[in-house]
């Protein structure tokens, strides 16, 4: 749930707030978080199915980037919101298994899987029913429930929510590399949910409630930007676009086979590319439009595609009528 506000009133309020904010022009982000570099590299890698070729595919994707993970702690953050036996809500456990193995082969000292499910407090049910528990046992990988992890207050490095500081879990703060592993999905509040929205799961429900409703009151767009600019950890993303979700995501949408994985270090460029794969204009997604101002690259000419070109793998994802404007490319 976001709030009790009807959607139109909420959007109108957000626009008025944005306009007022634009008049006064306070510093909305710290200089330290401004993305460095004139271009970002992104890799779109075909992957038809969740089969035993995934380890090699993920390893190939990871090696396209200069990620030095030797003797480092890598935290994989998949998207496990809740379990629907008929749905495709969560990052596929086979991809998590492949990523554990790939980062181990790349020399990581430890690969931890960590998530703070947004809706469900019953982590054991979520893990066992989804199949992730079996994967973790097989791989002998440690799982951390971020909803119950020890937390530390970290000063926000952008200032869209007004929260001032964010409570972040120690497991995330101690990681050498944090890998966001979202599902390629549409989202009924944010338009899309990708590597940046997936970071909601880093904020513990014990502090922010279920379904992280403090962040919903603070604004979903605003929270996505503040969380991603504040996480003081090196980042990478692997987007599960083998089977995505269209329509009424992130829970009740329909499956959409897309056959891709998206890799990258710049979360804005990863999400912009993923949106383009869904035939959604990232410039019309509010959180991406805002994050593209300082946190990473949004423009196509600033993103170097080092894997397959987008046009060969693009799919037409349906969206809710209220997001139809996102399908019109400016």
């Amino acid at each position, binding site marked *: 749930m976001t709030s009790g506000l009807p959607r139109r*009133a909420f959007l109108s309020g957000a626009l008025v707030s944005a306009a007022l904010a634009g008049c006064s022009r306070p510093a909305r982000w710290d200089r330290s978080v401004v993305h460095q570099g004139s271009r970002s590299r992104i890799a779109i890698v075909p992957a038809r199915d969740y089969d035993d070729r995934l380890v090699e595919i993920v390893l190939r994707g990871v090696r396209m980037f200069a990620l030095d993970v030797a003797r480092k702690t890598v935290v994989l953050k998949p998207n496990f919101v809740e379990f629907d036996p008929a749905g495709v809500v969560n990052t596929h456990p086979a991809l998590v298994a492949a990523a554990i193995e790939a980062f181990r082969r790349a020399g990581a000292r430890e690969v931890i899987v960590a998530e703070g499910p947004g809706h469900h407090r019953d982590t054991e049910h979520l893990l066992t029913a989804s199949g992730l528990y079996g994967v973790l046992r097989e791989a002998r990988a440690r799982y951390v429930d971020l909803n119950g992890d020890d937390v530390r207050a970290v000063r926000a490095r952008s200032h869209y929510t007004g929260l001032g500081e964010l409570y972040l879990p120690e497991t995330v703060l101690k990681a050498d590399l944090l890998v966001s592993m979202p599902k390629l999905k549409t989202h009924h509040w944010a338009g899309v949910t990708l590597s940046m929205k997936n970071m909601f799961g880093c904020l513990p429900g014990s502090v922010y409630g279920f379904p992280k409703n403090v962040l919903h009151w603070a604004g979903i767009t605003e929270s996505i930007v503040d969380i991603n600019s504040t996480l003081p950890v090196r980042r990478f993303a692997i987007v599960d676009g083998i089977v995505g979700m269209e329509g009424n995501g992130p829970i009740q949408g329909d499956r959409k086979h897309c056959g891709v994985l998206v890799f990258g270090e710049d979360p804005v460029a990863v999400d912009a590319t993923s949106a383009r794969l869904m035939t959604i204009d990232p410039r019309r997604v509010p959180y991406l439009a805002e994050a593209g101002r300082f946190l990473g690259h949004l423009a196509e000419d600033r993103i170097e595609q080092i894997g397959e070109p987008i046009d060969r793998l693009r799919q037409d994802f349906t969206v809710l009528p209220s997001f139809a404007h996102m399908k019109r490319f400016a």
Partner: protein
Amino acid sequence: MIGEAVAMLHGTQNRDGGWPSSHGRASSTECTSLATLALARLDAGERAAADRGVRWLVACQNADGSWPLHRETGTPSWTTALATLTIASITDEPSCAGRGARWLLRQQPRTPGMLASLVYRVAPQARVVQLDPELRGWPWTSGVSSFVEPTAYALLALKRLRPRLSGAEVGARIDEAERMIYDRMCRDGGWNYGNSAVLGADLWPYADVTALTLLSLADHRGRRENERSLAALRRMLTQVDSGLALSWAALCLSAYGQDVAPLLRRLHLSWTRTHFLADTRSIALAVLAATDGARAVAP
């Protein structure tokens, strides 16, 4: 199972007397409350650990009567209801629990304002969520709206303390919170975090939240909504095998006078498979369920 689970609780108790969510972390009010409640039901040998848990809770209470999530944070939290319930259930320390209850009664969840209320009254189908925005329960965190689980904890605490609480507002607040909970029930019974439908699509209930919520409403067991939700819980229990869900379900069904022996056998099997992921909350609730703990928490 009980012996192993109790041993695990002993093994995870921190030197400060509190319990963390899992071994090696900082003590939390939620886990300390549940572990203390569970161990206090066992024999004198286990009570020493529970007494240390009570001392941790008493020491962590804020001056305003609330409890923080952890001793270090200090900020009042939803766990106040659990700490209040625990102290009210197992000690003769009424002042601590009474101050916790009075803090709960002072809490005002955020409501979405006049515009949303007007839309709800005039054109409820235009709202993205189908719930009465004015009904107040309790929020997870100050300054946000009411949700089902923290409201259920608050009801359990306030109902246990009700004979000791004076003032007409106690009954009125309990009544409003119950109406809020029933308003958020899923179409076929049961509850999730607190939304029955979004954008016209029905959402499904969760077994753990449904059992907890029914437990908090056990003094209304004859109501049609309770019966529907009990039926929903039984359906969900054919799909769910977690320690958390089975434990809450056993506590709930016990409070409704039903045979929980089959559930306790499943709880034992589940323990052998996963050890409940070493989650203190689930382990403590399993001990509570296996020792007929419904009497310690149900209204």
